[in-house]
């Protein structure tokens, strides 16, 4: 029989495979929150994602954990935000920590004692979000669980980043076709190369303080460049 150490590695590999087959970031978040806790061997698991310049609770396997995470976002302080800011793990015993004077008492009141926030890094080394692991007792989130949670966080970061890249590329297909049509119209009308037409559109959108996408959509719909006065 293989050693027990490999049993854990095998379970994480299976999870990584499952996550890689999912389509969207939301699917990955849901599966992590429903399936990941047993791999850590204790504690509860939640996920905070950084999307459109905001932190958002993406899920938790425990409603009381979701409440405590939510309070961090409301109080705008807490281990998740520190972990994201520093791109480094944050671990705290909430019964003794002097940190986060607004948030810590409320998390303790909800019954949480130990808290681990692990940043999820993208391929380009920016923070995608934070994996939150919390324990109601010291034993629920001890050294062994912290080690497993760190392994989990690496796999979760990979899966979320891969799903995010796929989503971005799918959105880009639609955007590129719209901008492409506008470029084609200008190429034909003004006898320009594609590069010249793209340059023309870019300059126009900058000068008029309009989004490139909007200029392109306007040109396609009306066959005219959007009104420079912005009166639409």
């Amino acid at each position: 029989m293989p050693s027990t150490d490999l049993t854990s590695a095998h379970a994480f590999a299976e999870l990584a495979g499952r996550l890689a087959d999912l389509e969207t970031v939301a699917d990955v978040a849901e599966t992590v929150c429903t399936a990941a806790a047993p791999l850590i061997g204790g504690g509860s698991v939640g996920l905070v994602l950084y999307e459109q310049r905001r932190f958002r609770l993406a899920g938790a396997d425990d409603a009381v954990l979701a409440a405590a995470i939510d309070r961090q976002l409301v109080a705008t302080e807490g281990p998740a935000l520190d972990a994201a800011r520093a791109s480094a793990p944050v671990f705290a015993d909430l019964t003794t920590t002097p940190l986060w004077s607004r948030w810590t008492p409320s998390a303790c009141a909800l019954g949480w004692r130990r808290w681990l926030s692990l940043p999820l890094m993208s391929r380009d080394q920016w923070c995608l979000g934070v994996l939150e692991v919390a324990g109601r007792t010291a034993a629920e989130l001890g050294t062994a669980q912290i080690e497993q949670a760190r392994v989990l966080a690496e796999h979760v970061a990979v899966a979320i980043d891969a799903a995010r890249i796929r989503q971005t590329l799918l959105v880009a297909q639609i955007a590129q076709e719209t901008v492409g049509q506008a470029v084609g119209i200008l190429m034909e009308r003004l006898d320009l190369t594609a590069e010249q037409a793209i340059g023309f559109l870019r300059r126009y959108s900058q000068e008029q303080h309009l989004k490139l996408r909007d200029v392109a959509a306007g040109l396609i719909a009306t066959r005219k460049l959007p009104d420079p006065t912005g009166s639409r």
Partner: protein
Amino acid sequence: MSVISSPADNSAARFAHLAVELHNLTGIEETVDVVVGFALQALNCSYAGLTVWASGSRPEIAAVTAPVVAEVFELQLGTETGPLVTTMHDRETVLIRDTESDHRWPEWAAKVSALGVRSVLDVPLLFGARHATTTGVLGLYSPEPDAFGPDDEAVAHILARHATVAIATTRHEANLAQAVDARKLVGQAMGILMERFDIDGDRAFAVLRRYSQDTNTKLRDVAQQLIDTRRLPRVNGPKP
């Protein structure tokens, strides 16, 4: 015993680092090179190789750590028989404890043992639902007989799983990036036709698609020709 299973370094952590490293690479070649390199470090093997096979095409040797691995592969791909071929078709692991006493593929085994390879472990790469037509094999080799124990087999399976994820993800991303580029070109060609004939996007797309079908040319290529020449390609073939 595998190096990786020593308690001093946790194998789950090492595989997690590998998964991150593989994700950070964007090319297939680098990906498979890292996989076979990891095999050499983590397993009791002297050589490793990886083949990937998409249905409808020939199996391809994606990476080898030594020329002898390519020879072991070629010996099987030529005759379409051997443990690698069996692993690929049956999608099951094949372990050969000693090529000098193997009876399943005696001809192949004799040649391989003459190359100095005694132990062979072939592990399938099982791609998920989206890639059901693709498979691959991670091949591990040792000049020692009976080199691979249960831990090596377990490590090889875990490595194969991560390799599968990394290869599938890399391919999918590359395909999507190509699609983005194609959509840009098709959009430009549509715009040219929309302006020229004063038609809407749907009709412009229908014109491009008809030319694509009539000339049996990819839509992307029809678009590229129109952009380059400002003319629609001639229709030479018979009309449907």
